[in-house]
C-alpha cells in the first residue's frame, strides 16, 4: 500500500497549563476524505495549526507522502502540498476572482496567460465555473467577477481554488459547512467527491455529525487532546460518534411541552431600516409577535437582516419605519438602556464584541447592561458588593468553570463565557430574551446547559426571540419558526413537522 498522504504520529503540544494535543495519531490515506471530529477545545485547531506549520509540536513527527517533514511556516506546508481553507475567508472584496487567486502566488505561473489558463482549469475542478447555481445562488462566476458580488459558497470555492493553485494535493477544510445552507452543503460535498476522484485528499474538520457521516471515508475523533479512535462512518451511528466526542449522551434541544400563552410580550410592526450605504433596505416591513412562554425562532441565511432585526429591537440601531412594542408599550423611541430596564435581556451573536469586556474581571462584566438599576446600580453609583455576590450566583447556577470571579473574562473558554453571558442576561427577571446564536462556538457540554436554561426560563413565562444558524437548535427549541429573507419574514413553519431540508429551501427563497 502506498504511503499515507499525511501521517501525524505522537503529536504533543503543550500550552502553559494545558495539553492541547497529547500524543495524537492521525493517518490520512491518499485520495480519501478524512474527517476530524471533536468538540470545541478538543484540540482540532491546534492539530491543524501544527500540520499547517503555524505552530511547532513539542513532540511527535509529521510525515507527508512517507517523508518526515519539519514545518516552520505555512509556506513550508504549502510547499509540501498541504493547503488550508480557513473558516473565515481571506479574500479581497475589491479584486476579481482571478486576482484573489494570484495574490501572493505570483511566482507560480506569473500573472499572465499561463496563470490564467491554470486558474480556469482549476476553477472547473472546484466547481466554480461549472456551478450551475441551483436555487438563488449566483450561477457560475466568471473569473473576472469582483469577489464582492459573490455569495458565501462561491467564496469558499475561491479559497479552495487558491490552495490548489499553490500546489496543494491535500486540502484542510476547517468547518467548511458552518456558513452554508443545506443545499450549498450538498453542492460542496459533490465537489469534494469529484475532487477525491481526481486524487485529491481532504481533511475535513467539523463537529456536525450528520455532515461528517455523509462525506467522510474515515473519521478520527479527538477528545481533550487525545485520539479517541478512527472509525468507518458506515459502521457507527450518530449516537456512538457523539459519545466518542463528548464521552456522554448527546444533548438534544427538544422542548415540546408547550408553555405558550396568549399574552403578547414583543410586537414588531412594519419595521423598516434603510441601508446606510445606500443599498436595498436592510429591514423591509417586518412584522412579528412573541408571546410570554414562547420561543420564536428566526431562520435565515446569514446577512438577510437577522443582525439588524435584533439590534433594532435592542435600540442599537435607529429604524426609519414601524414600531416596536414591549408588553403593549411603544418603545421605539427609547434607548438601549431604557429597553433593558423594561425587561429585555440580550445574548448577542458575537460575545467577545458585544457582550463582554475581555480585560475586565467577571464581576465587572456582570455590571454591564445593569449599571443603571438595582441591585447593582443605585443613584448613579455601582454597588460592587452586589455585583460580586450576583456573579458568584451565576457562576454556581450556570456552572461557569472558573477559579474565581476576579479572573478576566478573556481567560475563560468560549463556552464558559457564554454561560456567564446567558446567566447575566437572565438575571433581573427579564420578560423578553433576544438570543442570537446562543450556542455558537460553544462546546457540547455548555450547549446542553444553555439550552436547559433557555427552556427553564421559557417555562417560567419568558418570551424568547431566537436567531440561529443551527437549524437543529432552531427546530428543537422554537415553538414557532419564521423565515427571514431580504429583510422581511417570508414564511412560517411548524417546528414539530418541518425538516432541516425544507427549512433550508425556504431560507434560500427557492420555494415559498
Amino acid at each position: 500500500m502506498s504511503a499515507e498522504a499525511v501521517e501525524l504520529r505522537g503529536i504533543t503540544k503543550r500550552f502553559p497549563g494545558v495539553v492541547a494535543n497529547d500524543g495524537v495519531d492521525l493517518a490520512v490515506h491518499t485520495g480519501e476524505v478524512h474527517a476530524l471530529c471533536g468538540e470545541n477545545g478538543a484540540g482540532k485547531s491546534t492539530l491543524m495549526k501544527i500540520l499547517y506549520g503555524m505552530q511547532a509540536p513539542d513532540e511527535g513527527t509529521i510525515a507527508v507522502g512517507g517523508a518526515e517533514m519539519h514545518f516552520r511556516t505555512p509556506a513550508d506546508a504549502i510547499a509540501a502540498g498541504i493547503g488550508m481553507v480557513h473558516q473565515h475567508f481571506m479574500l479581497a472584496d475589491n479584486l476579481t476572482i482571478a486576482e484573489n487567486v494570484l495574490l501572493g502566488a505570483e511566482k507560480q505561473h506569473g500573472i499572465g496567460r499561463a496563470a490564467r489558463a491554470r486558474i480556469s482549469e482549476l476553477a472547473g475542478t472546484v466547481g466554480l465555473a461549472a456551478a450551475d447555481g441551483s436555487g438563488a445562488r449566483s450561477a457560475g462566476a466568471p473569473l473576472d467577477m469582483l469577489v464582492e458580488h459573490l455569495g458565501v459558497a462561491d467564496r469558499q470555492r475561491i479559497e479552495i481554488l487558491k490552495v490548489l493553485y499553490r500546489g496543494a494535493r491535500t486540502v484542510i477544510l476547517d468547518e467548511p459547512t458552518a456558513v452554508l445552507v443545506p443545499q450549498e452543503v450538498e453542492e460542496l460535498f459533490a465537489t469534494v467527491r469529484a475532487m477525491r476522484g481526481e486524487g485529491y485528499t481532504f481533511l475535513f474538520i467539523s463537529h456536525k455529525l450528520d455532515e461528517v457521516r455523509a462525506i467522510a471515508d474515515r473519521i478520527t475523533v479527538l477528545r481533550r487532546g487525545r485520539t479517541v479512535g478512527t472509525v468507518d462512518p458506515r459502521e457507527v451511528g450518530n449516537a456512538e460518534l457523539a459519545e466518542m466526542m463528548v464521552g456522554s449522551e448527546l444533548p438534544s434541544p427538544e422542548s415540546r411541552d408547550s408553555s405558550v400563552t396568549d399574552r403578547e410580550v414583543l410586537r414588531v410592526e412594519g419595521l423598516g431600516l434603510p441601508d446606510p450605504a445606500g443599498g436595498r433596505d436592510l429591514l423591509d416591513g417586518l412584522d412579528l409577535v412573541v408571546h410570554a412562554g414562547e420561543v420564536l425562532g428566526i431562520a435565515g441565511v446569514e446577512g438577510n437582516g437577522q443582525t439588524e432585526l435584533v439590534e433594532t429591537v435592542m435600540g442599537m440601531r435607529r429604524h426609519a419605519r414601524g414600531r416596536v412594542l414591549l408588553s403593549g408599550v411603544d418603545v421605539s423611541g427609547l434607548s438601549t438602556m431604557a429597553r433593558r430596564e423594561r425587561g429585555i435581556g440580550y445574548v448577542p451573536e458575537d460575545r467577545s464584541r458585544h457582550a463582554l469586556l475581555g480585560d475586565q474581571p467577571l464581576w465587572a462584566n456582570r455590571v454591564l447592561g445593569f449599571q443603571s438599576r438595582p441591585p447593582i446600580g443605585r443613584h448613579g453609583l455601582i454597588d460592587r458588593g452586589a455585583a460580586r455576590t450576583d456573579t458568584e450566583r451565576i457562576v454556581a447556577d450556570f456552572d461557569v468553570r472558573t477559579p474565581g470571579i476576579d479572573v478576566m473574562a478573556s481567560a475563560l473558554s468560549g463556552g464558559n463565557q457564554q454561560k456567564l453571558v446567558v446567566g447575566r442576561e437572565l438575571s433581573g427577571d427579564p420578560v423578553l430574551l433576544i438570543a442570537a446564536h446562543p450556542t455558537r462556538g460553544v462546546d457540547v457540554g455548555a450547549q446542553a446547559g444553555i439550552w436547559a436554561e433557555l427552556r427553564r426560563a421559557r417555562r417560567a413565562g419568558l418570551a424568547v426571540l431566537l436567531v440561529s444558524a443551527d437549524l437543529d437548535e432552531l427546530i428543537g427549541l422554537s415553538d414557532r419558526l419564521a423565515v427571514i429573507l431580504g429583510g422581511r419574514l417570508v414564511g412560517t413553519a411548524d417546528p414539530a413537522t418541518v425538516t432541516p431540508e425544507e427549512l433550508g429551501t425556504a431560507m434560500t427563497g427557492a420555494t415559498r
Partner: protein
Amino acid sequence: MTAVARLRGAVVAPLLAIGVAGLLCAVALLVSGASPWTAVTTVLSQLGSGTVAVDTVNSAAVYYLAALAVAVGFQMRLFNIGVEGQFRVAACVAAIVGGTVVLPPVLHTLLIIVVAVLTGAAWIAIPALLKAYRGVSEVISTIMLNAIATGMIAFLIRPETFGELRGNNITTPPIPESGWFPGVPVGSGTIFGMVFVAAALGVGYWFLLGRTRFGFELRASGESTTAASAGGVNARRTIVVALLLSGAIAGLIGLPELLGRDHAYTLSSPQGYGFTGIAIALLGRNHPVGIALGALLWAFLDKSAVALDVVGIPREIVLIMQGLIVLSVVVAYELVRRMEQRAEQRRVAAGTPEPVGAAS
C-alpha cells in the same frame, strides 16, 4: 490573591522601567564624559537645599492636573492632545476675569476657578461635539484648536483688548489679593493652595472611575464600544461628557501658578504642561496614584536640571532620562500585561475541572 498579583505587576513594571532608564542614562553620561555617580549625588542632595522640595511638589501638582485631564480621555481611548490649548485659554480668560471684577476674598477665588473650568470645557466642546455627532477625530481637532488657542490668547491680551503693557511684557490686569489662593508656607517656600485641590481631584477621579455608573460606562466604552453600546451605554453622551470633563480639569492646570505666584497671565506664562501631562498619564497608567508618583518624579527631574548645570553636567540629560522613562514604562507595562494574561489563562486552565460536563 489576584489583587496582590495585580498590585505586584503595577509596582514591578514601573520600577523595572525606571531602573532600565537610569542605566541607559548612566551610559549616556559616561559616553558624554560625565560621571553618573556625581549626577546621582548632586540630584539627590539638592532635595534638601533651598526650596527644591517645595518647588517639586508645586510643579508636580500642575503636572498632576494635566495628567488627570489627559487620563480621563484615555479611559475612553480618547486622545485629548488639546489639553495644552484648553489650559492656556482657560488661564488667560480666568486671569482677565479675575483681574477685572471686584469681589470679597473667597468668592473672588471661587469665581476665577469656575471661569477657568468652564472655559476649559467650552474650548473642548467643539471637538467633543464634532466627535460625537460627526465622527471627527478628536486628535486632529484638538491639535488644531491648540494653534487657534495661541492666536486667541495673543488677541485677548493685546493692550487694545484686555491686556496691559508692562515693561517689555504684555500681561492681563493683575488679580487683586482677594482673588489669590493662599498657600502653606514650608521652610523658605510656599506650597500652593491649589496643590490640595489637585489632590482632592485625584480622589474624585478615583471615585468617579471605580464607583460610579458614569465611570463604569467610561471604562466599558474605552475597552469595547460595541459591548458598551449593547450594554446600554449611550456612546455620544459618554464621549461628550468625558471630553468636557477632560477640558474642565485642563482648565485648572494654569491656576496653581496664576493664583499662587504670578497673579496675571502674561505672554511669557509657561507653556507645554498639556504635553507633559500626556507623558505622565502614560507613566501613571491613568491610575490616580500612579499619576501622582509620575508627576512627582517628573517634577523632581525637572528641578534636577538646574543642579546638574551647576556641577557641569549637561542639563539635557534630564530630558533624555524623562524620554527614556516613558519609553521603558510603556514597554515594561506591555510585557507585564502579556505575562499576566498568560499566567491568568494558565491559572484558569489549571483550576478548571474537566471541560466536558459528563451528564451532570
